């Protein structure tokens, strides 16, 4: 399909602004750019059709099964979108007087109260815009805590090898070095390795629980104790909170701070990669270090924070995303939050059991909200890889699972159905998954050229990275 630029016709434009009602201002020509920015020239109908065509070449939760592991692609309720488009929220300037933004401040205060209850934490910042950004703010809190005690030798962050890549990358952004510890044979943190990794230089441990294999770290109290006894803090990567919300709380497991992916667990949409929200909650002893401002209990912005780490973003965070998450929690309520977690786990286990006859599954016994398939044997013996299965699933009208993560599983496929899939949807999807597997194994060639029905097939990523074309350079 053509690009916007290839549809541009010189001289075409939409009529958007009225004539200027005051004299134009002149500035010195030395300050001006050489020529107007070369943007496409289109009418509204061109744009309308262009984006409708792009829409047909994309896939959202509304299109079908989207079991992208670690991403919690649950249904995004429409009421949340409607509320986030109310002018009483969208037209509020971030710097208008607090007395004229009481509703916004109450949204933040309520969201903080509910999310602190769900996490078992005491205080919260909404400034971080995404999970990785929350990790950054969280590890900054840990760094500040050690510095405030005059303990400057704590410069190491421990990360299990099953962790998200953002964990070690975040630690490095905070000037820390990373100690990777390999998981035990059961896919959990190896306590002996953890014991030998901690010491006087330990700043903290970053952990996802349930972990990225969809396994609950049942020794979690021992894990947090080992780190605490060494003087370090424990960070909860909230990417997988959906499995356990209302069942067990990070605060009760011994974690000191946590980020939440409101765009995963709390049903705010992902927008094709953002905006998200990576709200960070912490225990009260870390509260003085939270980014400035915080919303005080009385619903006022508090800038008087001498020990703060500063700011990690303009203003107060992705407000409309937080608003959507609050709407979701209000809809679900106390009982609905727990029920959603339980059904997320039920759906994952049911789907896993349906697939277990065909696929090799890493999880032994029950999984949490997601499970991991390995195509290692098939790839080696039959030339059917995780990638082949993923691409064949596209032809069946499903979004593939996350593939090649976690890194510790060969040819991994990480499957997270979420609670908003019905039993029939799971039955149908599992039949389709098994069907794809069987036809791939009986005729590997058939999947090597999949997908056949998508607009493109297996673009040359290596070539694209070797000679990057990152913008349109044709004439228009």
């Amino acid at each position: 399909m053509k690009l916007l630029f290839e549809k541009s016709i010189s001289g075409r434009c939409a009529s958007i602004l009225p004539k200027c009602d005051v004299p134009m201002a002149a500035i010195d020509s030395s300050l001006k750019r050489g020529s107007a920015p070369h943007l496409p020239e289109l009418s509204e109908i061109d744009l309308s059709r262009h984006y409708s065509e792009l829409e047909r070449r994309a896939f959202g939760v509304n299109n079908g099964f989207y079991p992208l592991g670690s991403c919690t692609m649950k249904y995004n309720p429409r009421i949340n979108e409607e509320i986030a488009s109310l002018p009483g929220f969208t037209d509020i300037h971030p710097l208008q007087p607090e007395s004229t933004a009481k509703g916004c401040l109450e949204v933040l205060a309520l969201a903080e109260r509910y999310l602190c209850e769900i996490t078992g934490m005491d205080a919260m910042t909404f400034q971080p815009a995404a999970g990785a950004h929350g990790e950054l703010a969280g590890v900054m809190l840990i760094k500040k805590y050690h510095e405030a005690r005059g303990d400057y030798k704590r410069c190491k962050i421990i990360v299990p090898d099953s962790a998200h890549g953002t964990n070690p990358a975040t630690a490095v952004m905070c000037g820390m070095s990373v100690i990777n510890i390999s998981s035990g044979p059961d896919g959990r943190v190896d306590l002996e390795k953890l014991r030998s990794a901690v010491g006087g230089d330990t700043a903290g441990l970053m952990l996802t629980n349930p972990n990225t294999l969809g396994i609950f770290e049942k020794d979690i109290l021992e894990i947090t104790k080992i780190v605490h006894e060494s003087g370090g803090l424990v960070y909860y990567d909230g990417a997988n909170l959906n499995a356990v919300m209302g069942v067990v709380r990070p605060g009760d497991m011994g974690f000191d701070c946590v980020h939440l992916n409101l765009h995963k667990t709390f049903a705010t949409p992902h927008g094709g990669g953002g905006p998200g929200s990576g709200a960070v909650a912490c225990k009260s002893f870390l509260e003085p270090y939270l980014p400035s401002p915080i919303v005080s209990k009385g619903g006022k912005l508090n800038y008087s924070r001498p020990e703060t780490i500063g700011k990690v973003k303009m203003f107060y965070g992705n407000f409309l995303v937080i608003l959507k998450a609050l709407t979701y929690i209000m809809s679900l309520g106390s009982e609905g939050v727990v029920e959603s977690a339980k059904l997320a786990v039920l759906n994952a286990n049911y789907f896993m059991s349906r697939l277990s006859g065909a696929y090799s599954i890493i999880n032994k016994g029950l999984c949490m909200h997601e499970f991991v398939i390995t195509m290692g044997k098939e790839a080696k013996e039959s030339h059917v890889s995780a990638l082949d299965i993923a691409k064949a699933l596209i032809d069946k009208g499903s979004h593939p699972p996350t593939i090649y993560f976690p890194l510790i599983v060969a040819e991994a496929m990480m499957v997270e159905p979420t609670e908003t899939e019905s039993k029939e949807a799971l039955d149908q999807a599992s039949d389709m998954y098994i069907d794809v597997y069987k036809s791939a194994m009986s005729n590997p060639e058939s999947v090597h050229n999949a997908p056949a029905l998508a607009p493109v097939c297996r673009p040359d990523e290596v070539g694209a990275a070797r000679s990057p074309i990152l913008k349109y350079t044709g004439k228009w």
Partner: protein
Amino acid sequence: MGNYLPSTKAQQQEMLEAIGLSSLDGLYADIPQSIRLSRPLNIPGGKAELEVLRTMKSLANKNKTFGTIFRGAGAYRHYIPSIVKSVVSKEVFVTAYTPYQAEISQGLLQSIFEYQTMVCELTGMDVSNASVYDGATAAAEAVSMCRSNKRKKALVSATAHPDVIETIKAYCWAAGTDVELIPELGGATDLSALEALVDESVSCVYLQQPNYFGVIEGAENASKIAHEKGAKFIMGINPIAAAILKTPGECNADIAVGEGQPLGLPLSFGGPYLGFMASTNELMRKLPGRIVGEAKDRNGRRAFVLTLQAREQHIRREKAGSNVCSNQALCAMAASVYMSAMGPSGLCGAAGQSMAKAHYLAGGLEKIGHKRKHSGEFFHEFVTVAPYGEEKISQMLQMLEANGILGGLQLNGGVLWCCTEINTKEEMDFLVSLIKQFDEGGVA
């Protein structure tokens, strides 16, 4: 009450039986009883959709929406064409995830490629990424891009937005590197002070154009000074002003960043906004976050993919330059639709009108004794000095508020005003007449 769980109790039972369990609690056998929450969550019970709508509308009604706004300071109310809102509310774009699987995501990937192209056009730079969280994080990430073992200090102009400065400082503190402020002189960056500060230990110089006070900076000279000592030059720009002002490319900037909110995003109490980032080819592989590139598929067709992923955290882990993973894709799409709907003439029109109106208002305020504090040329924001103290300035702004006007931002004995194409001559004349009456003791 309200939930989004389609499976009925009977279906749940069937599913439990299929996996050999008798109750939902059995799913959590791995979680020790001692840490489980043994009580219900202390949050209110669920509500039906209609109740939730009522509750949230009542919260929205506790906010005051101003019909007339003369405040910017990092968040700008520009006109948003209807087509922008309609495109970015398409369900597919709203609910999709990051386009990892190219075949099923060509629509999103192409839209990001188009966005990158337009950001390059606007900034005059070689390459753009798919966006980051906002203008402040874009600036902080840009500073990180310039750091080397020998050069660890960043020089940041004191005339940049205070939140941008704070964010850069926090990122640099975390990384263990230094930030020094270049002092302000008469509302602009003191370039002779910059000359004295920049040396072989400086990694980069960050300058905002136009600056926090609305003044147009001598960016080309700052760039020259930075480059003479081997430091990189980062320009933080307002994307509407960019339609008129010399581009970062023309100023020889190494990196251009900025807050993309003026390009079709509502004020929304501060977010979600959009951080745009563009650089020279030389720095391409240091850009953080997602980047979309053109590729050929197996059948020779044009395709778009996430590219240069060897930079990124999910591949490089602790060796990645940044941890950025999510971007602001939907906001970037809003910016693309905005720029395409406005076109070159529309964007220049919005910029020219914003500037014209700010100059008209500055003239009106000057006539009643609220003179500009700075003498430099300005775009759509400017600071006035009130003929009275802080307390009375605050009363004056409250008087405007009572008249449904969000006035400028109170700033150290002055007021930072902003105009956009939305403000009419009538509104500005009314504003000036209200202040005149107030100053003469006519209204309080």
